[in-house]
């Protein structure tokens, strides 16, 4: 039905139109507790993120993480595991190795002393991901996930992914700006060789990696099928995207959910992603499985799920896809003379590439009298990504 809704929306847009809208209403203060994350029942790392809701009009402000809470996982066999705050609002633990015959819950005590408990939940299991495949369709590349659970016991799934891809600068660079004090002790600049082994180019700013995590709720269910089989689209790379210019990799994590956990996420998805067409369900209140102990009517957002997760990574290289037609952004360069005043005027947002003229008569080492510069994005890939090669990269 989602596709149909989008379609209808498009149809109506022919005659109608969609404009940006900013609510003229002032939101009330909410500050409800938001708890996200899965308790990993196996070896994997458990991360519980705790934050607070904010006013709608403050959406561009940074996320209000809940600091200094005490978070632990409790079993109905009276076992207990503490989580530690590894970064602001992120509470983690590793290797919990929970007992699948025991039910667990999450207890949160905020810095202000309020206590929150999730309902006891069974440990869910996630079968391994069978395969991640792709197809060229709708002018891009669509990635599909297949899971064939022989045990037939999961039925409700959630996924998230991290995608990583290699990027290359358009121009290599052997030069850099170098600051110094002139004789009047003023800040001055000139270009200097990066000198990566005798005036070679600096490959550390030539080859980089970008990455991205899923920001859409990815859920799926095989409850209506005769066996626990999942085949579903996970991610889409639009045509010509730089992601597939060299090599692309995606790592998908698969979580098993309880039916209630799935329904919570389904509602959340409907409330926040599937809106806008004429026949989409109207948004409504969302109730998870976490409650304030002292005030059960206090809204708390989130559903704590106890499960192990499985993951799978694939690589796709540009050669495999073929005809991808990636066109890099247009980059142009221009020449600057190696004079401090000129450099100071023009250096913002550009990176030097190669010398263009040398001082005559020649000196040794040659003194650069002018050089080429180009926009930093075209030269220095660390502006856009990281030059640390991921550990999994071939």
């Amino acid at each position, binding site marked *: 039905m989602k596709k149909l809704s989008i379609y209808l929306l498009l149809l109506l847009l022919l005659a109608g139109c969609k404009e940006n809208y900013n609510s003229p209403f002032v939101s009330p203060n909410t500050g*409800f507790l938001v708890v996200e994350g899965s308790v990993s029942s196996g070896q994997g790392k458990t991360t519980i993120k705790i934050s607070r809701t904010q006013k709608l009009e403050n959406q561009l402000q940074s996320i209000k993480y809940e600091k200094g809470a005490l978070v632990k996982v409790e079993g109905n066999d009276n076992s207990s595991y503490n989580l530690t705050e590894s970064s602001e609002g992120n509470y983690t633990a590793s290797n919990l190795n929970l007992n699948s015959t025991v039910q667990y819950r999450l207890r949160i005590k905020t810095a202000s002393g309020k206590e929150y408990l999730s309902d006891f939940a069974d440990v869910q299991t996630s079968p391994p991901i069978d395969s991640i495949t792709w197809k060229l369709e709708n002018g891009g590349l669509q990635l599909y996930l297949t899971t064939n659970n022989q045990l037939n016991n999961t039925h409700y799934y959630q996924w998230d992914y991290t995608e990583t891809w290699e990027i290359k600068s358009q121009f290599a660079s052997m030069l850099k700006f170098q600051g110094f004090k002139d004789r009047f002790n003023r800040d001055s600049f000139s270009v200097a060789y990066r000198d990566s082994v005798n005036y070679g180019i600096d490959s550390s700013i030539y080859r980089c990696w970008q990455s991205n995590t899923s920001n859409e709720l990815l859920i799926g269910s095989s409850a209506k099928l005769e066996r626990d089989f999942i085949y579903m689209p996970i991610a889409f790379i639009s045509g010509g995207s730089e992601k597939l210019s060299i090599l692309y990799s995606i790592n998908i994590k698969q979580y098993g959910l309880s039916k209630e956990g799935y329904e919570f996420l389904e509602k959340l998805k409907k409330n926040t992603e599937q809106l806008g067409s004429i026949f989409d369900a*109207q948004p409504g209140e969302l109730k998870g499985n976490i409650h304030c102990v002292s005030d059960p009517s206090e809204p708390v957002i989130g559903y704590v799920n106890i499960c192990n997760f499985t993951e799978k990574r694939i690589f796709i290289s540009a050669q495999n896809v073929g005809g991808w037609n990636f066109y890099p952004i247009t980059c142009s360069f221009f020449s600057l003379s190696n004079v401090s005043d000129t450099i100071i005027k023009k250096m913002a947002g550009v990176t030097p590439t190669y010398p263009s003229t040398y001082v005559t008569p020649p000196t040794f080492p040659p003194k650069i009298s002018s050089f080429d510069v180009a926009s930093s994005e075209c030269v220095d890939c660390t502006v856009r990504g990281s030059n640390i090669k991921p550990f999994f990269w071939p």
Partner: protein
Amino acid sequence: MKTPRNILFTIIFFSFLNVYGQKDTSIVLVTIKAEKIAITDFIKLLEKQSGYYFYYDSRQLDTLKVTVNSVSQPFLSVLNQAFANTSFFYEIDNENHVFISKERKPNLKLADNFFTGPEAKKNNAKTEYEVTYEVADNPEDVNIKTTEKAILENKLYEVGERTSTNKQSTATIAGYVSDAKTGEPIAGASVFITKTGLGATTDQYGYFSLSLPKGKHILNIQSLGMNDTRRQVLIHGNGKLDIELVSKVMTLKNITISAQKVNNIKGTQMSVQKIDIKTIKQVPVVFGEADLLRVVTTLPGVKTVGEASTGLNVRGGAADQNLILFNEATIYNPSHFFGMFSALNPEVVKDVELFKSSVPVRYGGRLSSVLNINSREGNKKKMAGSAGVGLLTSRLELEGPLVKEKSSFIIAGRTTYANWLLNLLPDQYKNSQASFYDLNLNISHEINKKNTIYITGYMSSDRFNLNSDTLFGYGNKNISVKWKHIFNNKLNNVTAGGYDSYEYYTSSNYLPTNGYKLNFAINQTYFRTHFNYYLNNKHSFDFGLNSLYYRLNPGSYQPFGEESLVNPEVIAPEQALESSLYISDKYKFNSFSVDAGMRYSIFNYLGPQNINRYAPGLPVTETNNIGSDKFGNGDFIKTYGGPEIRLSLVYLFNDSFSIKAAFNTQRQYIHSISNTAAMSPTDIWKLSDPNIKPQYGNQFSLGLYKNFASNTIETSIEAYYKNINNYLDYKSGAKLVMNPNLETDVLGTKGKAYGVELLIKKTAGKLNGWISYTWSRILLKVDDPIAGEMINDGNYYPANYDKPHDVTLISNYRFNHRFSVSFNSTYSTGRPITLPIGVFYYAGGLRTLYTNRNAYRIPDYFRSDIALSIEGNHKVHQKFHTSWTFGVFNLTGRKNPYSVYYVSENGAINGYKLSIFGSAIPYANFNIKF
């Protein structure tokens, strides 16, 4: 014909009349005693008593004075007496016209070639002041003694046997009023006597029945869009009188029947709105498709959530609380294209009646309103048809007699070629197709004067093919057979039976392993019999019984495609029987009339079925399910029922001013459940069962009605208060499709609606139309702790269609018979909407937080539309008549928001305002009639 007393004119007029035997001159007796009265006054007296009509040149006669002394003398001898010794001569034709001229006798013979001349044929249209009348001796035996064709208004018709031994002082006359041109019955025509105010209106078959004192009367017959006419009757006893009316505008086939001119004042029914197809066609609509339901939404008290919805919200009722009847057939989804257009072909529709408050006792089963759509009957006299081309659809309609004057058919179809619209979509939707069509077939057959049969077939279908892997469709199928039987002038009966169905399906193999086909269907079979007993002028009764058998297939989910792994799932069909018995009594004394009705409805939910049991006193949720009971085929699982009261009162201050009050109760056993703002074609319908109680409600209303300018300007003010119980609202995030435990996802909701409606309507003249203002509220409340969820903490909250202020203007100005301009304009408060009040970060992105339902409103709505209609020439004899309509929808191009919503996109939240038809949309429509 009254004013131009000009011999030349009258002679020409006369010359086209058919010639029948002259026989009445000796019968009419007149009593006039006068000395030297002006001849014109004398003629007036004579006309009054005799029923003859005089034609003369008043300039010739103004000096003449006559002396007459006659008591019960034959008309002719009085005439002779008066004109003796004057220079005037008279001549009488066979149609009771008296022509007076000076010096020489008028010559009434025609030139030999008169009828063969070219003009003769053309003007035949004017010969249709025809009356057939039959005489019956008593009501029990309507043997047709004589059938006589007589012409013109001034003939005296004798009804009943002169020698009747019936000693009663009053007699009942009955008959049909029909269109002289096509033979189609005219509903809602008034037949009345000015002096005493006695009168009747015709029913939807054009039938009327009226008790009058024996003796001579002038019957006035009025119907909007038709020429007023009158019949002079001399009533000896019970008998039959059929009347044909001529339509006012000489278009070939436009039906121009409308609310009877004074009925809004005198009728006991409150808050009834009737719109004829002519008005509907005048109102400019998007893409120029004459749209009945859109026009209904312009009436006071009727709202809709927005442009993409034909769901009506009548006086705070939900869209499923309207009974939409098309010739007795229930239409569950009267729209095409997901609600953008109504699925009823304007070419076959005669008129639409909307009952908002006093619903006639014969109708029931829905809480808010009854929308009764009457179709036309085919032309009984000759073959005719029409065709039209618009931006989205083409129409073809054919009609004609099967047996001349006895039976007729009308068949009509519409189809779309909206695929061009889809080609404008982005590439990935290029393989999509959309199509819809609807078909109508009506047959009426008059077996004899006492028995008529009507057969109606209707079918509509919508199909949406998305990327050739997803298909969505829905459709209605209806067939009904109606038999109208007249026992006698006082008692008649309409018995109807039929079958209605609505279904939708969606199938997709976009993901081959998840390929599915989902089906939903409602089927119902019904039998209705309705009697109307006309005791006398003061007293009449309606009674009858309805029986309706429902069978719902609430959902079947089947694998689709070879690779599909979908587990077939079928939700058990539901069946139920809804029966009702009713009686109402209309009683009139002096200025006061009352219509009191009682309807008793019973609903039996039938097996086989499994019924879930829930722990008593706990919320109805899946966790509180404590088992289920199995019922066998035909078991009466649960019976609901109760009386429904329909009471209305009218007090007439005078002929143009009245006050009315009404109290109505309604019960509803079938519910549609929707969690979308608009009524969607995939909304599911659910019968009441042990876990879902029937809806019931009542409404008090009070109104003042005043007409001005000879009833051509109607004004009214009405106020109402309404209670709604057990309306089904959904829980937040409810799953409605393929849910075998639907009761766990819905909430029994209370509602209260109240409002004031003002209407000023001009029904005649070059400028006509109406302006209405409505102030209304509809508030819902879920406060039952065991419902499982309280919406907005158990407080009242506005429904989706709560738009407190609403002003609508509908107007049409006719420059002449060929050009007319229509203009409409509407303003309303923006509808309530649920807006986020906060944001939070979850699953990699910012997401919105919602709390209270419908706490905000979208911006107000304003729209104006204009249309220009150009008719081809009005020569009657030409084979084809063409007309054009040009218009602009949303003239000001205002981007009226349909909805406002916030959505998470790539981790951020974006707010959007969606407008449908957010710019001025021009259109053109071409019609041809033959």
